[in-house]
């Protein structure tokens, strides 16, 4: 098992390295950091050239890449072109915010998705099954940004109705709230409710349906028939012989969907005006802040790779057949 993990880890590192190169090239060819300057008539050619030299943009691509990459390895992502702040600081702040959203949404969505899927399979064709199917279709077809805004509007309307700030709809925190851990924690969680709900609704839609189908397949498997033939009680048959088997495929799906979950988080953050990765990327793009965009892409790619690694480990734990591999 340890060997399995180490092997997976060993593959991840060159993968991230490759990703870093691709990221660099992509950003280099899709934007001109000097665009704003160029379109400004009062700035001379010489000034533009000077700025170009200052930013090191007159050097060949590979040199620039190597420079950037060596910096990254030591934790230096360069400085923001906008306010000269070290990008790593900006990133750090943004990530802690977004991870809250991602962590909450991911864990709850997996739990709910699995639970609903398993329940629907066990009570196939029941009212619960039909209802959860219908809701799954609806939320699976839902645009994330619209749902976020709808929930935000709903929150505002409810607040207006009861004349009390029950739902927080702006930002990830209230900076004026100070106090002990519990007060701050309560404030942060309060701000998380609607955004996390947005992500959960959509993710659970897809995952519960998949889990349902998987569970149904497992329930009709030959080894379940064997378990019944042994005289095991229905409870034991389900707990011991179906659940673990049914969890294996969903791990793969969650890993595949992680990138989508991140995109969803980015969008949701913009709707609720969070100061997380979403805002960082959009601002970075609008300001043509290449260092920020590069760092953003690399970090998110690394997050995807790492998450996939975690999923692989979980998979290896659940399924003994792939542990050798």
């Amino acid at each position, binding site marked *: 098992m340890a060997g399995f993990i180490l092997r997976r880890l060993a593959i991840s590192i060159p993968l991230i390295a490759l990703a870093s190169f691709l990221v660099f090239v992509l950003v280099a060819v899709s934007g001109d950091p000097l665009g704003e300057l160029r379109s400004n008539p009062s700035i001379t050619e010489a000034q533009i050239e000077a700025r170009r030299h200052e930013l090191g943009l007159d050097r060949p691509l590979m040199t620039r890449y190597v420079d950037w990459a060596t910096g990254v390895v030591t934790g230096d992502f360069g400085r923001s072109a906008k306010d000269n702040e070290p990008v790593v600081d900006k990133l750090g702040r943004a990530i802690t915010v977004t991870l809250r959203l991602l962590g909450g949404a991911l864990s709850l969505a997996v739990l709910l998705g699995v639970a609903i899927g398993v329940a629907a399979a066990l009570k196939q064709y029941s009212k619960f099954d039909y209802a959860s199917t219908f809701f799954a*279709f609806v939320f699976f077809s839902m645009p994330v940004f619209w749902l976020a805004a709808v929930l935000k509007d709903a929150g505002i309307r409810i607040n207006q109705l009861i004349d009390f700030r029950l739902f927080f709809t702006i930002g990830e925190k209230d900076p004026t709230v100070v106090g002990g851990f519990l007060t701050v924690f309560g404030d942060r969680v309060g701000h998380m409710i609607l955004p996390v709900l947005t992500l959960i609704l959509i993710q659970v839609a897809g995952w519960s349906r998949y889990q349902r189908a998987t569970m149904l397949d*497992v329930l009709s498997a030959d080894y379940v028939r064997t378990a019944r033939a042994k005289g095991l009680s229905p409870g034991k048959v389900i707990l011991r012989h179906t659940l673990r088997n049914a969890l294996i495929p969903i791990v793969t799906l969650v890993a595949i969907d992680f990138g989508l979950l991140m995109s969803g988080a980015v969008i949701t953050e913009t709707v609720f005006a969070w100061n997380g990765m979403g805002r960082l990327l959009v601002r970075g793009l609008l300001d043509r802040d290449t260092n920020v965009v590069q760092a953003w892409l690399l970090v998110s790619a690394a997050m995807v790779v790492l998450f996939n690694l975690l999923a692989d480990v979980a998979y290896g734990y659940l399924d003994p057949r792939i542990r050798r591999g």
Partner: protein
Amino acid sequence: MADPGPVHPTPGGLTPALPPPAGGPGPSSGPAEELVEFGVAVRSQWRLVLGRFLRHRLAVASLVVLFLLVVIAFLGETLSGYDYGRPSADATGSSLAPSTDHWFGTDAIGIDVFAQVQRGAQRSIEVALLVALFSTSLGALVGSVAGYYRGFIDAALMRVTDLFLTIPTLAVLLVVANRYRGSQANWLVLVFVISGLAWMPLARLVRGVALSLREREFVEAARAVGASDARIIFRHILPNCLGPIIVNGTLVVAGAILTETALSYLGFGIQPPDVSLGSLIGSGVPAANTRWWLFYPPGMFLLLFCLAVNFVGDGLRDAFDPQQSRVRA
């Protein structure tokens, strides 16, 4: 999540097209039951599929709804009589609530919202259909070539597929779209890039089918008769993958429209003065509380469209490959 991901319309989908790799269960959308050998089998098979599809009342109803939505979207001004780009000629005013004159009201500068929703829907649907066309073609091609030739070509193509699968779609789209911000050609670039990130699941699927098909006797027979590889792929293998291809193509439409609208919502998609459902929603968000008609109609249209597409897609999937475990709707 469906939206910024035409990449994965099926795995996150309502019944798995992603075969669980372990643990015993094995749902799979296998190849068409009857093979296309001399053209004769095809007709009866299609009739079977059509029959099964028609039995799904919800899928049929959704198809009707879809048709209506598309007709409304493409009929343009003839329906409402207003221009999506200009304040209405009768200059009745701005920010009007819905009325018999303006079915969805008007926006801040007096443009009829219904006309905007129409235009937005039209653009968004156009993009989605093109993406479905391109990504399906590319995916089917890559998959069939990989499955047919196997060996090194297969390994190489699958590595590329896997690499593309790890690309964060939205982020890359944003970076590329940023470059073309302000340009009206933006939408075309988007079509290509979204397609370029959406073909992988179908490639995997088709490859699986091709792998199993190439072992069948009719492929050997075709080769013995001297058919070229290209001919075998196009006339024998691909026609037998039509089921998964059609289902996947349908679902990609939903995924693609959600991606494009997400981009437009953020301001990176279809650029003003042209509209997309996403950009309409984007400008409607701040007004959601006070002028609901700017925000909810475009969203409802989008939701309804995707819902209908997904129901139809699910019905098609069941029509091509019926399984007992589906909830009959």
